[in-house]
């Protein structure tokens, strides 16, 4: 999987590369409009992570060119502007997703994965982790081929964990993933705790050995035995 990261801030760009490499992606970077333009015209990528505000041009222009040349490449916009117009413009121009800075790396990772799942037309919509199988097309979860019934948020939570398995997810990232800005942090931690407790119970009741574990002082992670 090849990813191009178009981001003018080197520090952030390097961090993203570092993180995504650990996730098993091949990453290339472009720090400005010119380089980005060259690279998208020469190489093909699976996903382009695109910052809209570049020092020498607009990321939206790159997006237009990209969509003309290779319409099935996935594009994920990252922008510091939480402007509704930008978001709509980006999505109308054919971007697949839109993340507002500052985002959680786990969130970026989950979005990239979901993007890739959607892009692979012939691929499966299934994620299999140990004895757990999750179908993203039908939003069903199976443990040892028995379907378990989850609430909508529990399903989203599990998908998030599976996208970032064996990684620690902190509560803020989980809260923001589940509810965006729709909830105050204070409450959200109690909610997360309750959600995770219920989800664990359900998974354990079907006899799966893989489950969510608490990591003291940090958050939670999905451990595959």
């Amino acid at each position: 999987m090849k990813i191009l990261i178009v981001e003018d801030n080197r520090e952030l760009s390097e961090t993203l590369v570092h993180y995504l490499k650990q996730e098993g992606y091949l990453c290339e970077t472009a720090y400005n409009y010119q380089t980005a333009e060259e690279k998208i015209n020469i190489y093909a990528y699976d996903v382009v992570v695109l910052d809209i505000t570049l020092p020498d041009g607009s990321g939206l222009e790159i997006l237009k060119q990209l969509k003309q040349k290779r319409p099935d490449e996935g594009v994920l916009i990252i922008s510091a502007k939480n402007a509704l117009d930008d978001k709509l413009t980006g999505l109308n121009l054919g971007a697949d997703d839109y993340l507002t800075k500052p985002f959680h790396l786990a969130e970026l990772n989950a979005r990239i994965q979901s993007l890739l799942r959607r892009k692979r037309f012939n691929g499966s919509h299934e994620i299999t982790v140990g004895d757990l199988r999750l179908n993203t097309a039908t939003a069903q979860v199976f443990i040892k081929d028995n379907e378990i019934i989850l609430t909508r948020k529990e399903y989203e939570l599990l998908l998030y964990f599976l996208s970032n398995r064996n990684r620690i997810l902190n509560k803020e990232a989980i809260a923001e993933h589940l509810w965006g800005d729709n909830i105050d942090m204070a409450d959200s931690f109690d909610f997360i705790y309750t959600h995770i407790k219920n989800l664990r119970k359900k998974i354990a009741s079907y006899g799966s050995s893989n489950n969510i574990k608490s990591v003291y002082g940090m958050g939670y992670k999905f451990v595959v035995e």
Partner: protein
Amino acid sequence: MRLITKTTLLYLLITAIVIASSGLVLYNITNNFVQKRIRDYFTHKETRLTGYLSKPQVDLDWINSFKSQHVEPLSNLKTPLLKNYDRDTIIFNDLEGERQPFRARTLDKVVNGQRYRISMYMALKESRLVLGGIITSLFYVFLALLALMLLLNYLSSRYLWQPFNYTLEQIKHYSLNQGIALAEVPTTTKEFKELNNLFAQMTSRIEHDFRNMKEFTENISHEIQTPLAIIKAKIEMLQKTEKLSGEQAKTIGAIYRATSHLSKLSRTLGLISKIENQEFTNREELDLKTFLEPLLFNFKELAELKQVKIDFKANDNVFITIDPYLLDVLLSNLIKNALSHNYEKGEILICLEPQQLTICNTGPVLDFAECEIFDRFRRNGHNSSSLGLGLAIVKKICYLNNLDISYSYQEPLHCFTLRF
């Protein structure tokens, strides 16, 4: 009261005073003249009568045959002589066939040792007429001036004050955000030109400052996000190493939370300034019931976690005209608020009636004054992890869209009422 009316009234007052005083002066002059004529006439008559009376043959009948004089001999009493006794009286004038005002003078005179009582009369009609004429003519002059003033008033408000009214109209419709340049007002009046120039200068100054502020807000809320993204990413990388002690993990968790708080804060403040700058103008007529249902569905699961019962009663066909994004922010914040300030196993009652939406919830009593509930950074119970901006946003949206929001506490419910 309009300026033009005020000046007219002032002018009229001054004119009235001037005309009244000139009338008084004229009256006095005429009156003095008339009085003098009367005095001269009486003196002259007295001399003539004295002349007649001093003749050896006094023909009193002949003298008394004149209407304007009357002489009667008095017996030689020791009574003092009557001095000039002047008075106004009404006498029937048979020439004109009507009763008319006369000035009369009666005096006693001793001529050749004989006392006479002489009365003389003089018609006052003409002088009265003259005086009346003066007053009437002045009154007509005043009326003419009044008419002239009204005409001038009308003309000046119609033509002279036109540019001023035009400027007022511009000020009335002036809005900072629209960035519309002010139209040049065609006028040759120095004061209006000055007013327009000042107004133009003022607006350009305000616009300049406003742009600065706006840029600052945008820059700060925009430029802060990338460094925050780096901090967040780096912390996540640290957390992944798993070689941290519990203490370090806690510290890093705290840093992470503070960073999240900071980014949320700047984002929310950015949203508030966007709302203030009226960047959401996509007004549509929205059906509140169909708008609320998916929102409530989003919160349903959260409510269940807290075991809060949501009771939703709604009339059909209640419409509100507002930007859908703003309505979403507004209602989400209100419902979020009702949920997060609630007890475990509490209740939320949402009632949608025509022109009114009420959202009530159980929850702990406020530890601050009711009127402060919509203030920025006002949190109940010093809950430092909440931003304390939700209700401030609600208030702002309501204010800018002419909606009325009010809070009241009726044991055991906190109620927010939105009227539209």
